């Protein structure tokens, strides 16, 4: 129900307020009605046919670094 997956935006149809996203070999049209300022190349979180949010590359990197520091005494 609450499954959502990050997928890359490969095309935008501004008139329809839609984007084509790519996940592996699969391409799908999703609605952009819930997000703003999405550009081609962005990663968005897809849920029931809608982009819910943009995924922040910077923050993802920061979280991965946090994992890598696990075990290092803070």
């Amino acid at each position, binding site marked *: 129900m*609450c499954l959502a997956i990050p997928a890359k935006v490969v095309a935008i149809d501004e008139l329809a307020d839609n984007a084509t996203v790519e996940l592996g070999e699969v391409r799908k049209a999703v*609605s952009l009605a*819930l997000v703003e300022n999405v550009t081609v190349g962005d990663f968005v979180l897809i849920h029931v*046919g809608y982009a819910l949010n943009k995924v922040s590359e910077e923050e*993802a990197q920061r979280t991965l670094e946090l994992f890598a520091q*696990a*075990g290092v005494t803070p």
Partner: protein
Amino acid sequence: MKYVDEFRQHKLAKQLAAAIRDEVDTGRSYHLMEFCGGHTHAIFRYGVQDLMPGNVRFIHGPGCPVCVLPVGRIDNAIHLVEAEDVILCTYGDLLRVPASGRNSLIKVKAAGGDVRMVYSTQDALNIARENPDRQVVFLAIGFETTTPPSAVALQQARREGLKNFSLFCNHVLTPAAIQNILESPEVREIGSVAIHGFFGPSHVSSVIGSRPYEFFAEEFQRPVVIAGFEPLDVMQSVLMLIRQLNQGRYEVENEYTRVVTREGNQKAQRLVAEVFELRRSFEWRGLGLVPYSALKIKADYQEYDAEQRFQIPVSPAKEVKGCECPAILRGAKRPTDCKLFGVVCTPDNPMGSCMVSSEGACAAYWSYGRFRQPEAKSASTEVAI
């Protein structure tokens, strides 16, 4: 897959498991409730529970919208198909949920009822456009994640003057449910269910932000960590919760910063506020009537409200005898405490919603956890991965 594979790395999982073992205080226990079915499945599918010291226990909460929907609302949906002859569109999760009298939407469909599984509210709108002579009802369920798509559909229907489309609204709210659990007798009474901290839902929080959790972190003195759904996210969040508990802090922390902000998705929140308002109370399976825990369609949109458009009788629904879903949803019992579990109730023949939904605790136990050793390991047990 980018943003997925990096969060499932074996080497980092090993490091995190070691860090958690170093961090726990062996003189106390840590009961952590994962509210969301997505977390339940991450924990079981990737064996996260087996990487934990024995004094860290996961308690499964009511964060699966399919599981908490009362049987009566499925009965209502079946009534719409059979008595009102509507085309009923819904997400696939709901089709096999048992209704009263061993019925379900999939059985109604098999008997000729026009029930259609859709991926998106946009699909339901298309069905309404293609069938102008039929009434199309979208059976809407879900937490704050699925509510904005419902709001978009209602606004589009009104803009287009789509007179044959309406929505049967069962959208529910996360913070109200967590508060209800914290106020429940099982949690309040000492020696029953102890919950020391919460994992905040990933995708719900991407919409509502982390701010709504601040009230009850403060009020009930329980730490909350908004956690992503990948196994490393869950493990990092365990570490963050343990650190808060060890330091006596009760704050809202955000591990899932790549998607969640404190304010959330304000465009989605605005859309929801334009279309929906709070219900005074709503029945949850397992929790009973919970005040201000669900949404209804505003009067301004009432012509698109299936509850206004159709006569929907309120009939007492019957729970399956012996099914422990209600207690499991509150964290008061485990799936294996239910005498139906794995005997007559399996994913192929579900008796209760927790076994039907792919996010239900019983389905997770059945798929990944039914062969686990129930006895807890001691906190000093070395974990080999």
